[in-house]
């Protein structure tokens, strides 16, 4: 896809931000929205298929303008059903709320919404241009605008070389790009994407991410359904985890992954000791672990310290120690003790769980019969329920992660 930095394809969204600045949102959760700032504000969405399969059970969703919102959930959780309710593809049993200021189900509003369905199939006898023109007309885009936008969109999604080919000759990735183009033909204020990177190659995924970020900067509200959690982690401001028709957790990426933050310290045993492998691990346990060291750092700080069982250290031969804290002060006694004993520190870094960890944690809790971590019914306060474990430290970590100064969100070690 081409760079969209200087493109005027997408107008800034009409809604002003509550603070009146119109500036892009920061990566820190901002849970309070003015009603007019919300592109999507639905509550109490219920849907039961054939009278017995409960697909949605009182879901609520609030997405402000200028935000990329991710919907996570296993197959059959109700993600697609929720999006389809918003797009009037499915009739909800019960739902209240608004999209772009109009009641859910209002057809004219859909002229301002873009939608990429999962497993879409466009008429294979049409060319890419014809498909986009067709859906543009159906969305109420006038002919002059279509004539201008269609070539631009084809260029944007990287189909310029195949614009004259019939859709039947397209690969899956090309069809996905075409799907994205048709969803953008009406310059939507709200964009709902169901598995947008399905079948797209890595380069295409990156291009789609770049495009989404630009759309966010232009104050579009974007909702993404995907199974590829890493994709969400890279672009989403907030996400919600749905399981069995209920919203189980919701928050910023930082909030969702704030439950198991830690420092990892990697160290090599003293040269003189000649330790390696299991012997080094035993020596380290004796030095640090609370069950063996009375009055050691763990006890002093009230923080859990553990040697990593898998010990996937980045330095060959090093052993890892995990300190359950994100405060730099908390890790100093551990380092001191190791150094005092002659251990050589090779690496110290903060580690937080991935979105996949957060996802699996919520799913495991839900399967265990635990109630959702957030309330299902939307309140009147205008407050988007944050993850219950959010804290100042998370925000700090999130800030540094999004600023590109650390390796926090992407490094792989999981507990």
């Amino acid at each position, binding site marked *: 896809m081409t760079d969209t930095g200087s493109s005027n394809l997408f107008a800034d969204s009409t809604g002003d931000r509550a603070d009146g600045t119109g500036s892009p949102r920061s990566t820190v959760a901002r849970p309070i929205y003015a009603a007019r700032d919300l592109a999507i504000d639905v509550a109490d969405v219920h849907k039961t298929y054939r009278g017995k399969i409960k697909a949605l059970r009182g879901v609520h969703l609030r997405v402000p303008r200028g935000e990329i919102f991710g919907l996570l959930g296993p197959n059959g959780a109700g993600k697609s059903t929720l999006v*389809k309710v918003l797009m009037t593809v*499915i009739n909800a049993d019960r739902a209240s709320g608004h999209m772009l200021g109009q009641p859910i189900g209002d057809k004219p509003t859909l002229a301002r919404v873009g939608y990429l369905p999962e497993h879409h199939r466009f008429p294979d006898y049409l060319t890419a241009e014809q498909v986009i023109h067709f859906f543009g007309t159906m969305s109420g885009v006038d002919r002059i605008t279509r004539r201008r936008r269609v070539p631009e969109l084809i260029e944007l999604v990287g189909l310029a070389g195949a614009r004259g080919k019939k859709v039947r000759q397209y690969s899956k990735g090309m069809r996905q790009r075409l799907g994205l183009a048709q969803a953008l033909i*009406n310059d939507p*204020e709200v964009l709902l994407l169901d598995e947008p990177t399905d079948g797209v190659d890595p380069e295409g995924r990156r291009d789609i991410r770049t495009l989404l970020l630009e759309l966010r900067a232009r104050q579009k509200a974007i909702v993404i359904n995907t199974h590829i959690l890493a994709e969400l982690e890279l672009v989403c401001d907030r996400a919600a985890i749905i399981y069995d028709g209920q919203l189980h957790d919701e928050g910023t990426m930082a909030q969702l992954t704030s439950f198991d933050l830690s420092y990892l310290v990697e160290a090599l045993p003293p040269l003189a000791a000649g330790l390696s492998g299991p012997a080094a691990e035993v020596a380290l346990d004796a030095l640090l672990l609370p069950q063996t060291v009375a009055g050691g750092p763990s006890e002093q700080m009230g923080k859990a310290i553990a040697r990593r069982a898998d010990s996937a250290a980045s330095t060959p031969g090093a052993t890892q120690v995990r300190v359950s804290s994100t405060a730099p002060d908390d890790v100093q006694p551990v380092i001191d003790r190791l150094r005092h004993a002659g251990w050589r520190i090779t690496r110290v870094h903060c580690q937080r769980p991935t979105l996949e960890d957060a996802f699996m944690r919520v799913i495991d809790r839900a399967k265990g019969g635990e109630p959702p971590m957030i309330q299902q019914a939307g309140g009147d306060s205008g407050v988007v329920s944050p993850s219950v474990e959010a804290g100042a430290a998370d925000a700090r970590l999130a800030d540094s992660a999004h600023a590109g100064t650390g390796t926090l969100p992407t490094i792989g070690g999981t507990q």
Partner: protein
Amino acid sequence: MSTRTPPGFQLALAQTGAVFLDAYRELHARKMFWIALGIAGLIVSVFAVLGINERGVTLLWFTLEIPFFNTQLMSKATFYKVLFASVGVGLWLGWASTILALVSTASLIPDFVSSGQIESMLARPIGRVRLFLTKYLAGLLFVFTQALLFTLAAVLLIGIRSGEWLWPLLLAVPLVTLFFSYLFCVSALVGVWTRSTLAALLAALAVWGAGLAVTVTDNIVLGQRLSVQRQVSFLTKDLEATRLQLTGLEQGGAEREKIEPVQEGLGRRELELAKRNESLETWQFWGRLTFVTRTIFPKTAETKALIERWAVSDDEMARLMDAQDNAGQQNSGPFADRPTMRQVEKINRERSLLWIFGTSLLFQAMVLGAACYVFSRRDF
């Protein structure tokens, strides 16, 4: 505002145009459409090589002597009109082309409502009912295009060939499209309900077949009733004459030997008349039943027959039938005799347009109403 959205009516017009343009492109992409058009071309070429002279029908430079097809019995114009109505519409547009069209369009609605396609369509500022009806009307484009091209080509060829410009034959285009719409609405209902192309096709064929069976049955029952009615009428007259004869004999003081056979004949006739009246009552009962059933079904055959009815006048038709009778034509179809057949045909030609169109359109409205209901309520 980021994009300019046309106001309501303009938007509806643009969306309808887009759906029709898409349907046209879809037709273009279907091989069946071109096959049907090719066959239509072959049939039209028949009009170019067939003619009529004072001895019979001409095929290129040959003359086939057919007793009741020559310019002594009918004009060139009548010949071509009958040829167009019976072969062009009766066989091609009304049968073969319709079957090809049904096969070709049976998948339109099931494909339209299939997973992957319908989501993109429903997520637009267009109501479900309007979307469905627009798609349905676009589905008629196959037959409309076929009928238009075929009829136009036929009229032009006949005009060039004979100098007779039979523009009224162009009425075949809306009539054939209307006839097809009766069947396509059934296909659409079953298609949206089951999402199965095969089920949609079979349902349309079943309704067509059932409608034809009801029409044929009603015609046969009507023919039987008319035939019995004629017998009753004949017997009644005969009975009256016998009674008069008997009265004359009795008043004239005729001998007993002369009176008795007439009395016996009178008794036999009375018995026969009673039987015929009973039979007439039975046929009248069945006639009412089949007519009501026929009224409920869409009038496929009757709608097609309007082309002949409007193109060939009653006088022309009567002359043609007379000529056939005079030439010794014995064929009376499923009827007892040719007078009965002619009477049934006359009754059918005189059916009111309200009955033909009104009841068929009512059937179509009900079927489409059910289809719209299913489409509106369904989750995709």
